């Protein structure tokens, strides 16, 4: 008889392509990795509302404003789906928010960069969401059921995000001299941080191997990054944007683009809290979370009062 609570049995389920559900046996490391990765993912969606939110009130047309609002709303929704998926592992959203605000939990460093001109909204959609989608498509097949289901829904909804970003970039590259300059400026600032979104090289990524073994991650950081580079460079060239890297070239033999080395010092510096907006993003989150406390308390108080009333009338 096999032991259903053994790591070996768990691994055999993973290897045969089964999904793991909340109540199933899972090794502690698997649970911890999931909570860390999923909550980081959820926080990223929620913090990611801010850089784009910076431009809602300045969106240049009614159409642009509606699209941007709907997109940011989607991100909030995606954060919500992911928080719910983490909650299946017995961690409440209140705890997750506490971890974010205390700095114990991270979010994607990309959102510590500022959105400075309207083309940044294009660049965020095209490059940042584009990079996220490469990762998310892969995560639809992740081994944890609730995570996988959240990712399927997210991917379905995200499909318009990248296209709207590319549409903005295209419009601006076809526009006035000022607009072209804004688009190239946004490209210059977002290109490298977008590549960093996939995380350190596989050789430097300590947790990658477990995550791949458990099929939480289905492809490695470098594999995903390469996919993104290969599909994005032709898109940039099509609309006349310059890749901010003098050394990039297409390797005819492999069919892949090669680039200059990524500046990992910058990556680690931003993760350590020294990006342009780390402090601002977290303070914004804390401020509105605290300002909402009395509202949540009122809703709770109303519920308690009225559930008592209902009982009395029964």
């Amino acid at each position, binding site marked *: 008889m096999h032991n259903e609570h053994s790591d070996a049995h768990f691994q055999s389920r993973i290897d045969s392509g089964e999904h793991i559900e909340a109540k199933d046996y899972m090794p502690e490391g698997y649970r911890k990795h999931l909570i860390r990765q999923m909550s980081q993912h959820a926080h990223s969606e*929620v913090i990611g*509302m*801010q850089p784009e*939110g910076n431009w*809602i*009130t*300045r*969106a*240049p*047309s*009614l*159409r*642009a*404003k*509606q699209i941007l*609002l*709907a997109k*940011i*709303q989607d991100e*909030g*929704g995606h*954060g*919500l789906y992911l*928080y719910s998926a983490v909650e299946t592992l017995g961690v409440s959203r209140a705890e997750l928010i506490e971890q974010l605000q205390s700095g114990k939990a991270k979010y994607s460093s990309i959102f510590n960069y500022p959105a400075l001109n*309207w083309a940044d909204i294009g660049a965020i959609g095209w490059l940042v969401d584009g990079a996220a989608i490469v990762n998310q498509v892969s995560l639809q097949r992740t081994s944890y059921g609730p995570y996988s289901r959240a990712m399927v829904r997210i991917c379905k909804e995200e499909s318009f995000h990248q296209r709207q970003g590319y549409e903005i970039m295209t*419009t601006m590259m076809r*526009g*006035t001299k*000022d*607009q072209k300059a804004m688009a190239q400026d946004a490209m210059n600032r977002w290109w490298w941080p977008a590549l960093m979104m996939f995380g350190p090289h596989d050789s430097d990524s300590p947790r990658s191997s477990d995550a791949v073994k458990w099929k939480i991650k289905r492809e490695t950081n470098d594999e995903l990054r390469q996919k993104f580079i290969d599909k994005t460079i032709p898109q940039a060239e099509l609309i006349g944007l310059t890749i901010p890297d003098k050394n990039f070239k297409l390797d005819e033999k492999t069919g892949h683009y090669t680039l200059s080395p990524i500046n990992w010092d910058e990556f680690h510096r931003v993760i350590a809290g020294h990006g342009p907006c780390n402090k601002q993003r977290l303070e*914004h989150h804390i401020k*509105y979370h605290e*300002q*909402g*406390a*009395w*509202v*949540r*308390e*009122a*809703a709770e*108080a*109303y519920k308690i*009062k*009225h559930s008592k009333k209902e009982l009395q009338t029964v």
Partner: protein
Amino acid sequence: MTTKEATYNYVIRLGDNALILGHRLSELCSRGPILEEDLALTNIALDMIGRAQALLKYAAELEGKANTEDDIAYRRAEINYHNYLITEQPNGDFANVIARQLFISVYEYLFFSELENSKDETLSAIAKKAIKEVKYHKQHAIDWTLRLGDGTAESHKRLQKALNDLWMYTGELFEMDNIDTYLLHQHIAVDAMALKTKWQSEIDRILTEATLSVPEDTYMQTGSKKGIHTENLGHILSEMQYLQRAYPDAKW
């Protein structure tokens, strides 16, 4: 004044209400008291901006100068905006947002239920769509009014203050000027003054249920029909119009 000119002005007023309130609500994105409410408020903002787009597009047609709805939304001077003063008031706290939503959505539900019968087919169609949206906005506002009014002492106090503060901007909702009257006779416009009694009794009923007091009568602020605003509108426009004004030749 031709019917077309009068209708243009009337449509601009309705469009501006949706445009400016939608703008205010859009400012709340990522600032909700809980993630779910953030999404709910964004949905309301999207309904408003969508309605503004439909109305201003119609205004552009009536104007007949080859302007788009964006030209109208983004290129006018402050005095040519005719949104009710209540729509441009700052968001303040969540209680203030809810108080504003309550006053406006109860009004708009009555208003669009009448406008649906307008002889102007475009306005009637826009009203039909708006009623469905506003019915939801109203339910959302009423439910929160009950929760905050009958929630904690703090929420009760905050909401009561917000209702009292905004009360002076509610008089405008029922004003009729010569454009309104002219179009009312042609069965195009709504008799806003006639909505007052129903609005008042509905607000009374909701506030009483929420254990709140109906604000005392006060001097009612006015000005939007003449383009005289509070200081808030100028700041909204300086943000909203920024790109359109800074790069007048650009297409977005």
